[in-house]
């Protein structure tokens, strides 16, 4: 778990962010900081604007107002070159993996390396194999096509692609969605290990309470386009905010919390 209180540099800074889709207000003044080296989770019910915020952070969607700084740079109005420089420094795991179906897993992982470095094909294949092994896939998975993999393996392969360029920042969109509990638990462990080994900062969007308890250093809780609470899970679970309490003290929230206590 993280050490709250230790002063660290914020890697992501969001201030007064507002987003609208036509009439619908998605974000209504969101502000948050993600510090270097922490696992930061954005939690909340479906449709509260979590994924849209993630898309805005990774330059896939433009907010209507407010500022987003990543690695200390304002990401609105970046040129192509600057955007590319930023994108090379982060990896993204999409909810459904988004592996390229026409490429093998190994080619998928090697794609960013092939595009952005001048490494030899052999070295790229080797590095891809290392990343595939890092994510806990068997070596034989490298030659398979995504359609031949199970859901859990596809997630791992997608994670291998996300860390292909050894990014400093990793974005995970619902990393455990669609996984069975055992695979999900394995994935929790994997994310933690990778963070330790590679010194990553991780920003994840999830509504998996187990993941929040077990992996996240800090959690921001989003309801209806606003952040209603930020802190460690222990802090949040003592929050007096009714919406937060409802989330954590619902039947599933209680179960996950008890599990987490038992483990300690």
């Amino acid at each position: 778990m993280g050490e709250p209180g230790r002063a660290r540099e914020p890697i992501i800074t969001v201030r007064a962010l507002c987003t609208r889709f036509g009439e619908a207000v998605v974000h209504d003044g969101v502000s948050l900081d993600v510090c270097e080296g922490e696992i930061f989770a954005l939690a909340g019910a479906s449709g509260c604007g979590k994924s849209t915020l993630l898309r805005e952070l990774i330059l896939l969607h433009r907010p209507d107002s407010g500022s987003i700084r990543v690695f200390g740079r304002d990401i609105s109005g970046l040129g192509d070159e600057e955007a590319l420089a930023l994108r090379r420094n982060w990896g993204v795991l999409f909810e459904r993996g988004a592996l390229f179906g026409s490429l093998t897993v190994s080619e998928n992982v090697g794609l960013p390396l092939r595009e952005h470095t001048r490494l030899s094909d052999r070295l790229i294949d080797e590095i891809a194999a290392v990343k595939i092994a890092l994510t806990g896939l068997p070596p034989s998975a490298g030659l398979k096509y995504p359609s031949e993999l199970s859901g859990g393996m596809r997630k791992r392969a997608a994670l291998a692609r996300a860390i292909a360029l050894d990014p400093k920042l990793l974005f995970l969109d619902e990393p455990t969605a669609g996984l069975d509990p055992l695979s999900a638990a394995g994935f929790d462990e994997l994310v933690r290990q990778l963070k330790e080994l590679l010194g990553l900062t991780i920003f994840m969007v999830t509504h998996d309470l187990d993941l929040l308890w077990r992996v996240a250093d800090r959690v921001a809780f989003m309801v209806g386009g606003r952040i209603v609470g930020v802190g460690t899970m222990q802090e949040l679970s003592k929050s007096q905010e009714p919406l937060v309490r409802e989330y954590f003290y619902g039947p599933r929230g209680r179960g996950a919390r008890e599990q987490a206590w038992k483990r300690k």
Partner: protein
Amino acid sequence: MDADRRVSQLAAPEATLEIEGDAMRCVGAWTVDAAAGLEHWLAGRPRTRLERAIGEPDGKERTAGRAGISIDGSELVALDTAGAWLLQRMVGTLANAGRRPVLTGFRPEHTALLQMVGEPAMRAAFPAPASAPGLLARVGRLAWTRIGRGSELLEFIGEVGIAAARSAVRPARIRWRPILYNIRTAGFDALPIAGLLVFLMGIVIAYQGATQLKRYGANIFVADLVGLSMLRELSPLLTAIIVAGRSGSAYAAQIGTMKVTEEIDALRTVGIPPLDQLVLPKLAALAIALPLLTVYADALGVAGGMVMARTELGVGFPEFADRLQHALYLSDFLVGIGKAPVFAAIISVIGCFQGFQVAGDAESVGHRTTVSVVQSIFLVIVADALFSVVFARLGI
């Protein structure tokens, strides 16, 4: 080079390996950005620098068997998995060359990374791709898959036939709404493009005929030429080709995408046979729409010929229409229209069949869509040729 410029702009880390006798020092940031340069440097010609560094152990050490070589990591600024892998590979090369590499001065986190990257399991992690089969094997395999495809197509036609028969017995199960919808998209929406194309074709035929007919003073026979070629051959064929390109491809893409997203399976689980829901309405709609489109195309093709006949040959509209009455029999019209339902069946069955053949991913959808258009146009023309032979034998 553009790529080079981009790479060098984004990354200016310095990574080097300093070699002094039996001591190596890793200096700088051994990261993915520097790995290309490092790799290149290590593999320098004529002998790799690594070979040069390790190749000349003195006689004493050679007799001792294994000579130690130290690799110092205390001056590493940064190390990531790519750099770590490169280092591990170097260590492996040294070990294979009979040297005993000793890692010293690495920071704990770097040591952890090196260990993780160097786990024995990972070194075996490069399965060789299957070797490419020979020419004979490829031909055989291709023939075998083609035969398989052919029999699957026959199977599909059989299934569609059975489903159609079942619907005919119980008309209550016919899905009228998708039929009407498909008539609109495949038929009505195709009116402008089909009309324009056959109109232009009528102009072309009349124009080509005009130069020949003028020579014999047989101007009026342009009506025979345009009328017969349009009604019997060109308008059914052209209409079918347009529809194959417009709608056949759409059928393949729609069903293929539904297969990828498991919607076909979902249909089955809620008890709706995919053939009833997706194939039969398209087949029925096209069997209705294509003959109608052909009638419309007949009219516009002849109109194109009339326009050209008046400007090039001085045959006015009334004379042209009058001659057309004598030149054409009802059978000519019916021969053209009669082919249309057959073409419709070919287009819809091939389009849907290729859609169901989609497996897995987006590329497969694209491939199957292409195949559906090529195959249906090919089969339409083959069928047309067969019709010509049969009609000639029958004397129609």
